[in-house]
């Protein structure tokens, strides 16, 4: 439906099971109708999800007081509309292009200004702390937003264990570079690999989430598996995906979007309705599934981070 009313009680939202059932049904219809599609439809029937490996339930998820009490965006939107340029610049394509992406074995290198330089297996990172469900608003720099029940724990849990040195004022994150698996990297749309950076106090803030799941399940590939960041008060591109390296440093790292257009994307990239992108307004956003736009909130509504930036000119430090 084109026109969706914003106030749908959550009981009416298509549940994931229903959605998958519908997909099964459609696959069945395709099977009956089109002989040519038989092979594909059969695969869809055999495994209802394209990302079967990613659908494993995560046990022992705890609720979090940091969650937003807002209607969650349907799973199918969050898994079929992705800005993940490593796979494609078309938001509808990563779901398919990341289908066979290998997320195991996977290691994360921790280095730079840190006491415990090490290479960690992603599964050992995931076990560092109890998984929490964090329902966060997520605002894309393009002007759309979603509400996602992420699963993970505070990034600070990992940072504490790594024991950064006193001079480490920033953290840099790097996404996997593997053009064989990530077709988007065969084109120099951005400078690969993708890098992102945070100030240490931002990274240590309880809201900063090290994420490996969503909707109670293992993170789907197109959403940044196996390990990503979620920075709910910053534009989505700061929430770097498929992390292979975490480096502590004393000078402010550049991030990929800043490298690509320094006048449009800054280091901080905090959600801010009063500072427009040079090419479009940031005052409003379209929540996926809603017809009207809603006003964008300062720090995406996460006022508790405001003190991190007190005294800073956020127009200059955009």
């Amino acid at each position, binding site marked *: *439906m*084109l026109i969706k009313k914003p106030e749908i009680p959550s009981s009416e939202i298509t549940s994931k099971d229903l959605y998958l059932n519908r997909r099964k049904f459609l696959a069945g219809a395709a099977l009956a109708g089109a002989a040519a599609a038989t092979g594909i439809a059969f695969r869809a029937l055999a495994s209802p999800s394209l990302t079967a490996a990613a659908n494993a339930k995560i046990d022992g998820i705890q609720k979090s007081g940091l969650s937003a009490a807002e209607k969650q965006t349907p799973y*199918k*939107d969050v898994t*079929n*509309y992705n800005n993940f*340029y490593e796979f494609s*610049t078309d*938001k*509808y394509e990563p779901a398919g292009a990341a289908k066979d992406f290998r997320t195991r074995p996977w290691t994360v290198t921790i280095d730079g200004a840190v006491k415990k330089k090490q290479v960690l297996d992603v599964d050992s990172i995931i076990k560092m702390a109890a998984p929490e469900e964090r329902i966060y608003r997520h605002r894309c720099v*393009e002007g*759309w937003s979603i509400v996602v029940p992420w699963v993970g724990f505070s990034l600070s849990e990992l940072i504490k264990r790594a024991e950064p040195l006193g001079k480490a004022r920033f953290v840099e994150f790097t996404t996997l570079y593997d053009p064989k698996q990530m077709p988007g990297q065969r*084109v120099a*749309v*951005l400078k690969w690999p993708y890098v992102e950076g945070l100030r240490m106090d931002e990274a240590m803030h309880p809201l900063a989430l090290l994420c490996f799941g969503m909707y109670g399940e293992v993170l789907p590939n197109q959403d940044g598996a196996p390990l990503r960041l979620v920075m709910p008060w910053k534009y989505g591109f700061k929430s770097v995906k498929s992390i292979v390296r975490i480096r502590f440093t004393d000078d402010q790292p550049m991030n990929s*979007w800043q490298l*690509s*257009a320094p006048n449009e994307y800054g280091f901080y990239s905090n959600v801010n309705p009063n500072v427009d992108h040079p*090419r*479009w*307004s940031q005052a409003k956003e*379209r929540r*996926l*599934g809603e017809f*009207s*736009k809603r006003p964008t909130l300062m720090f995406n509504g996460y006022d508790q981070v405001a003190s991190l930036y007190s005294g800073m000119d956020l127009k200059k430090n955009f």
Partner: protein
Amino acid sequence: MNRTQITKVLIFLAALVPLGRLAWKAFHDGLGANPIEVITHSTGDWTLILILTTLSITPLRKLTRQYWLIGVRRTIGLFAFFYGVLHFTTYIWLDKFFDWHEIIKDVAKRPFITIGFSAFVLLIPLAITSTAGWIRRMGGKNWQRLHKLIYVTAVLGVIHYIWLVKADKHKPLQYAFVLGVLLLYRVGTWALEMRKKTAPPSARRRPVEATEA
């Protein structure tokens, strides 16, 4: 019906396919997570595609010697305008919800909107004067001069697209390439024309196209 009329009907039907597809998908939950973005992009794409199609009629008819093709150019041009209206309406309604203050600010402040808006405004006189009556009233020469504006619209339309993409300029550059080829053809024929002008009058080209429309 003659060949031109049949082709016109076919073009008419074909040109409605993109809109039909959008409408069908809209009512079958097929426009994905962000339907309004899809509509904006699709109508924008088809405006530009149809503008470039009108510009390719002249080279096509001369290269293939299918001179009757000129008779379908107006239909295509009007459909370009039709998709332009849909595109602009999507912006005014579904993107800005008739917030005129915001719209004026956008047009004044955001280069890609300024350019797109200019491209669209320049299409309006062309659509109005597209009838045989207007050609007669204006006279072929003046009419042709006015309709040269389509080149400006095409260039602005391509710049609009280049300026609005975030990082991946592949698609707008494909349009730029097509436009480049079509403009080069004009430069080439113009250069030939200039050469022939110095030759005896008998070697001159056939006169204006509008009279055949």
